[in-house]
């Protein structure tokens, strides 16, 4: 059992929670994720790590209520427990293993979309702590859905894009990327993009002609998260890989996004039925 020690609402349906999980906190690195099971009978669902505090022994997760299980997680309050919190899983971001001297020469552009902003944060923070300050584009449909702006501003140079123009650049993140790279002439060695699958697909299509190395973090369906089931299979450069153990970060230019999006929808029908069947007032409890 893993205790929820802090909870904060970041937008209408996005919640941040700090979970007491000392071992996970100690081992966590940027780019990794955890598997959470809310209670007995619950699904195992992968969630990205938004932050970790070795001293406090806590790991921060940011969850958007998109299905039954995420609703159940978000309905929990401080002092309550998650049944399971296993991790950290997946490979850490590649820059973690890079020689520091080489790393300090590199220029990073992060592109974060919606709830995907949360897993970008520990990466930008880690780089900042190691002497690299990155540009970070944070995109959302509208101003109210932007998250982690203050936190990110402390560790990176933040640029905001909203689809409706309610804050920052008016348009998609790809438009703002073109602005920075083609208009302002900024140069980058690597783009790291985390967000909805469709956004990552278009960011990769945008960076391809620039020959800008682009890393994406995939949020595939998983059951165990440790390489056992293969539900998270993804085609990368024509090879089938497992998101959980070979990723979650991959070379975005090699990822078959259409297949990945189709596979993500594998249980959509059943999810819809489950959501419809669940009509009590307990809000997922």
């Amino acid at each position, binding site marked *: 059992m893993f205790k929820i020690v802090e909870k904060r609402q970041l937008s209408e349906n996005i919640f941040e929670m700090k979970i007491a999980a000392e071992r996970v906190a100690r081992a966590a690195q940027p780019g990794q994720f955890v598997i959470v099971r809310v209670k007995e009978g619950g699904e195992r669902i992968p969630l990205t790590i938004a932050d970790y505090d070795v001293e406090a022994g806590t790991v921060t997760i940011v969850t958007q209520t998109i299905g039954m299980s995420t609703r159940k997680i978000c309905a929990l309050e401080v002092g309550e427990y998650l049944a399971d919190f296993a991790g950290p899983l997946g490979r850490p971001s590649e820059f973690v293993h890079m020689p520091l001297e080489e790393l300090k020469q590199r220029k990073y552009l992060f592109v974060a979309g919606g709830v995907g902003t949360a897993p970008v944060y520990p990466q930008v923070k880690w780089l900042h702590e190691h002497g690299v300050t990155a540009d970070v584009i944070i995109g959302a449909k509208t101003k109210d859905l932007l998250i982690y702006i203050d936190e990110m501003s402390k560790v990176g140079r933040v640029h905001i894009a909203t689809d409706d123009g309610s804050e920052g650049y008016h348009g998609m993140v790809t438009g703002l990327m073109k602005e920075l790279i083609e208009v302002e002439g900024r140069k980058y060695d690597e783009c790291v993009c985390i967000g909805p699958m469709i956004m990552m697909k278009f960011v990769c299509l945008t960076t391809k002609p620039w020959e800008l190395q682009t890393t994406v973090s995939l949020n595939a369906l998983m059951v165990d998260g440790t390489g056992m089931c293969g539900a998270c*299979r993804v085609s990368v450069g024509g090879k089938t890989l497992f998101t959980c153990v070979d990723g979650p970060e991959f070379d975005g230019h090699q990822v078959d996004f259409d297949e990945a999006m189709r596979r993500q929808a594998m249980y959509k029908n059943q999810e819809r039925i489950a959501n419809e069947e669940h009509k009590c007032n307990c809000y997922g409890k």
Partner: protein
Amino acid sequence: MANKIPRVAVREQDPKLRAANFEEVCYGYNEEEALLEASRCLNCKNPRCVAACPVNIHIPDFIHHLTEGNIRAAADTIHLDSSLPSICGRVCPQESQCEGSCVLGIKGEAVAIGKLERFVGDWALEHSDEVEAPVIEFNGKRVAVVGSGPAGLACASDLAKLGYKVDVFEALHRLGGVLSYGIPEFRLPKDRVVAREINEVKKLGVRFETDVIIGRTMTIDSLLDEEGYDAVFVGSGAGLPRFMGIEGENLNGVLSANEFLTRVNLMGAWDPEHSDTPVYVGRKVVVVGGGNVAMDAVRTAKRLGAEAVIVYRRGEAELPARKEEVHHAKEEGIEFRMLTNPTHIIGTEDGWVKGINCIEMELGEPDASGRRSPVEKAGSDFVIDCDVVIMALGTSPNPLIASTTSGLNINRRGCIEANEMGATSREGVFAGGDAVTGAATVILAMGAGRKAAKAIDEYLKTK
């Protein structure tokens, strides 16, 4: 003559009924049946069954106690060599081990050793409250066990009995490894058998911790260097599923047997009232493979309401699954397409499985494994319409531990290199079970766990 009695038939759930539920197929013997069957044993001077048992259970001894009606003594005898009789009695391939070498089997039918073991094991679980937990003096040494499957459980209980403080780390949220995520409820009940057998191990003072992925949450190096363990046993199994590498394998509706069985067994998707995890079978499921896992998957699919078919590239005689499982599957209405190999999977426009293209095979010359290798019959392609394809082609060990442990050698199949007693290339690290051998059986894993416990004891005594 005792051996004039025919082998006592075991009661089973009616095939028509059980093909639609997850209750146990085999009811096992009651006391009367067990005692009668026990009376068939010749109590051989040189019992071949003992030698054929991977953990060398004193089979004629426990059966002899049974014939005298002393079930407690029978249980104590089994427990000398096995900590999981209720499990092994159900899932061991007895026909190729103990029963396969029973003298009675030469001219007639072997003693039903497996069913007797199960009877004794279940009786011991039912009556476990009558036995006080043993008081074992702590010998001052601590051992970490990675994985709570058969190898880990056997190693942990033996070490605990010797006075070691043993902590078992399990990556999943439920204990038991393949006993929990792999083998279905209808063959091995989870609460009634697996959880209770594990409970017996807990009574020995073994501590279990779930949600700890060794290689990620902690490493073997940190267990030895920081967490203060004197030795580590790795029984992490072979969890990585294989795929065929054919076209269409990433279509929606193609999954590994591991995924399918994990959803149903570990996550409880067979019981949607108590589980949030979805599982999809559609109208018709094709399972590719011929091992026990393939049988488990196809019979599970049937129980979830689908028409279910086995596709296997060799002939029926070559099926690696236990005879009993094949027999049960047939009784339940599973269709077997032998000498058939998939060439590619056909999808709908929006990427869902709609069929599997297969080719007929014929048996050629024996290959390295001694089995006649199948050869394609040119031009014999045909399509089986289906909604789901389950790949049950075997598994290999997870590379997570090997890749994060310094000085641990692995072979080219990804298995940890260990000697007969489980010692690896890294001092203080022992390994056994599927992590060393690749996918094998529960009893072989248990045997390896026990040998390693002995080796760990010897290693730590001299340290």
